[in-house]
């Protein structure tokens, strides 16, 4: 079962090369692959909800799913499904405009599925070494996607992306080595020592200080990938330069998987220390730093995709803060926030992609009257902005409120205050910068109407999801999040 998760995208990404020049087939492979993936993940989710966890015995049981990575997996597959559907519309439009030729069209999908493969590998393995490998692999797989348009900016973005992420990741590897070393010292058993489940069970026997320094390296390493300030620097460039579906995947899924890695290590360290003081401080500081940086940049940003990118940094910061506070409420909220953020943000990137294709610019100042030109996209985009800035009734409001309240409950008044301040600034930035795009009349005639039929549908679906979850959390999700929280809290 678990292997299906890996086989489907891998097979898909290979299958594309068999297709000669038939775009329809490619789209079919693409969508069927991701939907099959989603179906499998749903099935697995059911299993998880029933039995609590699934382990495959192959390769010394390095594949393992419990509520926590089940949650991440669910988000991943859901978002990938939606994004892949969206990207058929997107890429077709680009193809029709001869922005991409056939071979690069095929390359795109092949790499897309490879990218998905690596991310899923990250989520479902329990071997930290393997996790590291797959996270590094995500960088490599997506590097070409970021540099897809192969113009100056995109290449620069890709270079920065790959260099900075690889450097960061290398430090994560060092951290993992130290983790392994501490386990190796006390437990001796070789392969198991990278098995976070195993490490977690004997966390008490590990050496505290080694764990701490290992955690430092892991936070820096994976934090680079998550986009925590000040290691976030690659993120705006990559997100703004990649094709919109890829940006959606990057901020909707990739960041989560990296965050997942951090949290897995954090649980071990916390269990070993018996409290979350050391890790909590780091996470809170980095989180607040990220939110603050994001606030600064959003206030004066001129490029709407970059604004969205910075808001990804912000939300990763909020999530990190939530995990840093590490009370039951905050962790619940953070987990919920992960889902909300990936859905909302991918929706926004999708919408921005439509806008970009329509207006052929990323400059906010050059865009007017989206609502008139593209009714559905415009409306969804506008609502999405309110959602991402944490307005009710959308789900992000709920999770952000949860984190804030948790911060107050844990008597972290300074953190909470700063968070609220930054959120206000960010809201101000978003509204003052972007609201102008939606109204007024466009500078030149772009022709009324959506680009194609597919993309609006996707947007509306996501909008519906976030609106509903904002008001009512489906019980299975709640159960999932709760058990994931218990895993992280070690209760």
């Amino acid at each position, binding site marked *: 079962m678990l292997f299906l998760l890996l086989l489907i995208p891998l097979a898909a990404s290979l299958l594309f090369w068999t297709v000669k020049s038939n775009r329809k087939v490619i789209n079919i492979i693409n969508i069927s692959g991701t939907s099959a993936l989603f179906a499998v993940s749903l099935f697995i989710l059911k299993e998880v909800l029933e039995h609590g966890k699934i382990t495959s015995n192959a*390769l010394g049981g*390095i594949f393992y799913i419990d509520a926590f990575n089940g949650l991440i997996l669910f988000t991943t597959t859901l978002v990938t499904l939606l994004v892949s559907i969206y990207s058929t519309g997107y890429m077709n439009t680009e193809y029709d405009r001869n922005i991409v030729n056939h071979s690069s069209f095929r390359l795109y999908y092949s790499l897309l599925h490879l990218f998905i493969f690596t991310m899923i590998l990250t989520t479902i393995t329990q*071997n930290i*070494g*393997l996790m*590291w*490998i797959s996270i*590094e*692999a995500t*960088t*490599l797989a997506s*590097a*070409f996607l970021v*540099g897809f348009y*192969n*113009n*100056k*900016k995109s*290449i*620069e*973005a*890709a*270079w*920065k992306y*790959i*260099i900075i992420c*690889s*450097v960061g990741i*290398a*430090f994560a*590897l*060092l951290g993992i*080595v*130290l983790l*392994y*070393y*501490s386990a*190796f*010292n006390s437990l001796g058993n*070789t*392969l198991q*020592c*990278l098995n976070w489940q195993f490490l977690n069970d004997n966390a008490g026997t590990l*050496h505290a*200080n*080694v764990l701490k*320094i290992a955690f430092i390296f892991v936070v820096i390493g994976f934090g680079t990938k998550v986009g925590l300030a000040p290691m976030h620097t690659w993120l*705006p*460039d990559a997100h*703004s*330069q990649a094709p919109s579906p890829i940006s959606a995947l990057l901020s909707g899924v990739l960041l989560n998987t990296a965050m997942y890695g951090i949290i897995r290590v954090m649980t071990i360290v916390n269990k070993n220390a018996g409290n979350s003081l050391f890790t909590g401080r780091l996470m809170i500081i980095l989180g607040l730093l990220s939110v603050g940086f994001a606030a600064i*940049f959003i206030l*004066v*940003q001129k490029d709407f995709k970059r604004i969205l990118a910075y808001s990804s940094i912000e939300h990763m910061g909020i999530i990190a803060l939530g995990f840093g506070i590490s009370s039951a409420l905050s962790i619940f909220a953070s987990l919920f926030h992960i889902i909300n953020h990936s859905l909302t943000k991918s929706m926004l990137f999708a919408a921005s992609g439509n806008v970009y294709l329509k207006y052929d610019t990323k400059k906010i100042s050059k865009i007017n009257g989206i609502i008139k030109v593209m009714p559905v996209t415009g409306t969804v985009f506008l609502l999405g902005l309110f959602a991402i800035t944490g307005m009710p009734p959308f789900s992000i409001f709920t999770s952000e409120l949860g984190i804030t309240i948790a911060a107050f409950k844990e008597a972290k008044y300074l953190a909470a205050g700063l968070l609220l301040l930054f959120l206000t600034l960010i809201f101000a930035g978003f509204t003052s910068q972007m609201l102008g795009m939606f109204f007024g009349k466009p500078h030149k005639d772009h022709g009324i109407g959506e680009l194609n039929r597919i993309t609006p549908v996707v947007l509306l679906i996501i909008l519906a999801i976030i609106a509903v979850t904002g008001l009512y959390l489906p019980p299975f999700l709640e159960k999932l999040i709760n058990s994931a929280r218990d895993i992280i809290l070690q209760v």
Partner: protein
Amino acid sequence: MEEIAKILNIISICILISTFSLVASKRILSYLNAFRIQSILLAAVAAIYSVYYLVAEGKLEGIIIIFFMTVALKVIYIPKMLKKISLRVEYKVEKDFFINIPISIIICCGLVVLTWFTVSKIPLMNNGYNGIFLVQSVSVILMGLFFMISRKKAIGQIIGLLVIENGTFLTAMLLTSGMPMIVEFGIFFDLLTAVLILGIFVFRINETFEHIDINKLRNLRG
């Protein structure tokens, strides 16, 4: 084990020195040489381990494979490839560093000291050679990063990245005599692909920007 540790210590010190020489060197070709030396020393570490296991426990550990891979990749293939790339894209030799050499050497010394200071806080590290090993390997990593910071050209950055990887491997081998096999393979695989992709990008940069001076890639700001 004791004398093995002695030898390893000597080797790792040599690696450190080689890293210093890397930081001190000015030309891309000399980077490559320094890196090659470093990789050879790394391979030597692997070799020593494997030999030790062969002698002591009479069985062939997986670490021997690491030895071969290191030799194949880091000593032979990657430097060759990078050399090829640099010859292809390097039209003229120009100053390639922000910080001049003596100062960077001093900074690197500072790094070593800081690392030592930090590691000395870990009581576990104070027995045997582990502490020294950790100090050496971590400072190699940091110096690799510093090297990346201080060099303008793309090739320099690739090499810096590779040095960081080397340092990590060194840590792994010195402290734990090598990670589990599958992980090692994965890491090597990643490393290889990373270098390949970076190489391709160097070409792309070269053809779109007519140079590989990363410092001039500043279109995406703010």
